[in-house]
């Protein structure tokens, strides 16, 4: 296997996984990857890493919003809504 091909594929793998490459390019990568065991292996590990990463949440949860803060937010929200009603319609 030509390692230059692997190098070119390596640079495009995120967009390949997201299916964001132009049609022709995606098929080109498909053709290379299906015949290249190291690339198959690497794509699998990257795909699974991305899937895991998308589910990432830090191990710390926020405290509840304090009542006083919530009230201040509600007042600011009410003012903004009143301003919006008084403003000319948006395009």
């Amino acid at each position, binding site marked *: 296997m030509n390692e230059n091909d692997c190098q070119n594929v390596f640079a495009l793998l995120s967009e390949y996984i997201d299916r964001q490459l132009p049609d022709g390019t995606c098929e080109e990568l498909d053709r290379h990857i299906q015949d290249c065991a190291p690339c198959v292996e690497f794509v699998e590990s990257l*795909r699974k890493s991305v899937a895991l990463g998308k589910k990432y949440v830090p191990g*710390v949860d926020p405290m509840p919003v304090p009542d006083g803060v919530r009230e201040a937010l509600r007042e600011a929200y009410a003012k903004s809504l009143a*301003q919006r009603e008084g403003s000319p319609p948006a395009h």
Partner: protein
Amino acid sequence: MSADAQEQPDELQLARDLMAGSAGAFEHFVDLYHGKIFRYSFTMCGHREDAEEVAQETLMKVFENLSQLREPEHMKAWVFRIAKNACLSKRRKSVFAPARELSLEELRPHRDGESGELDIADWSALPDASAQNAELKTALDHAVQKLPELYRAIFLLRDVECLSTADCARILDVSEDVVKTRLHRARLLLRAGLDAYMKTGQPKGSHPKTGVHA
């Protein structure tokens, strides 16, 4: 359809409801985004107190300036841009300061000179997205924390929050090409961090490949 344009109908509808003053939208928005902004800023800054303050300050700015927002489609990116700036203000030194971009060559896994095999773990035993395993979750935490900040920010916005490439570019004041470049590097680094765990912590019966490169 492009994966970049991931539809998030609930969030978009919530933005519409909030801007229209619909009943219940305020409470739902505060609870949802307080959590989102807290998690984003905690992962960026690493301080619970700072993250709580960033979440509250961001929400206050959002509600104070809500009348300026015209398009609900832009709500989420707008909120995260405010959060990013609030997060920055908590730091003496910018966590988003430009750092050297890693080259792809630095991120390529090593190959065995004779067999040509990659020096990576055996991932075939791991089901897709199986983050239920506590050890794997810890490994993911470490891998995320080890990401350089400019890659961590893109990873959080693009992969965790599913914001589009264009939205991420607006939030972070960089071009869309930079977002794509950094997302790829962030994912490669995350993969490498998890690979180290897969080599040592995988279930019995699997056959981690040999290799000493860390």
